[in-house]
């Protein structure tokens, strides 16, 4: 948050060595992909989208692997109940097909772009009252649950 209270404006940056794309307020000092220093140049959103291969699809299994990898080393895990996880993945992928992004099936998008970024799965559920400080905490939909000890 800037001093004036407005959120900082994120922009797209491209590594001139390996075409790694970063979306953020500042470019990385070192490219995490090719390790080049001071390699990022500001680019347009349209250019970034083309570089990022919008045709590169991700299926449910690949997404499941991705969120399991994301959860590894964290205090939470993907819900071990396969039926519940399958239902939620179905909803997430239906929402992506019908509404453009992997929106949470247990919340409704508002049609306010910035607001709806908050409900893309995985969302920042660590701050939600259904998770924070709770021994059996879980995200609102239940796809992520606090790891059992």
């Amino acid at each position, binding site marked *: 948050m800037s001093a004036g209270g407005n959120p900082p404006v994120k922009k797209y940056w491209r590594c001139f060595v390996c075409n790694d794309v970063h979306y953020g307020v500042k470019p990385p000092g070192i490219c995490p992909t090719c390790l080049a220093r001071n390699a990022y140049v500001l680019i347009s959103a349209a250019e970034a989208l083309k570089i990022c291969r919008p045709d590169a699809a991700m299926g449910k299994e690949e997404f499941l692997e991705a969120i399991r990898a994301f959860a590894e080393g964290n205090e939470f895990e993907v819900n071990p109940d396969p039926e519940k996880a399958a*239902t939620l993945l179905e*909803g997430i992928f239906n929402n992506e097909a019908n509404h453009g992004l992997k929106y949470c*099936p*247990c919340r*409704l*998008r508002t049609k306010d772009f910035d607001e709806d970024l*908050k409900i893309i799965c995985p969302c920042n559920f660590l701050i939600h*009252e259904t998770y924070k400080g709770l021994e059996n905490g879980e995200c*609102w939909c*239940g796809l992520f649950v606090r790891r059992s000890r």
Partner: protein
Amino acid sequence: MNKLIMFHGQECPHCRRMMPLVAALEKETGIVIEKLEVWHNEQNADLMRSYRPVIAAGCGGQLRVPTFFNTETSDLMCGEVEYETLKEWASR
């Protein structure tokens, strides 16, 4: 006249678990709760959005499902609840 609505999502596990409780409540009391799916029906979604100031204020700032909403009194609950809690809300 009071109108009771359950906003729900087709692939929301919490909504699915509440459905039998709603059915049991309707059978026991004769109260009718209109069930409106919001992710596959844009008309229902727009209706829920029209109540956003009230619903978001009572549901963590967001439009969560399931949400149980009384259109007359704006009395609402969101998330899974026990049968008696649901009955108490519907009977107010």
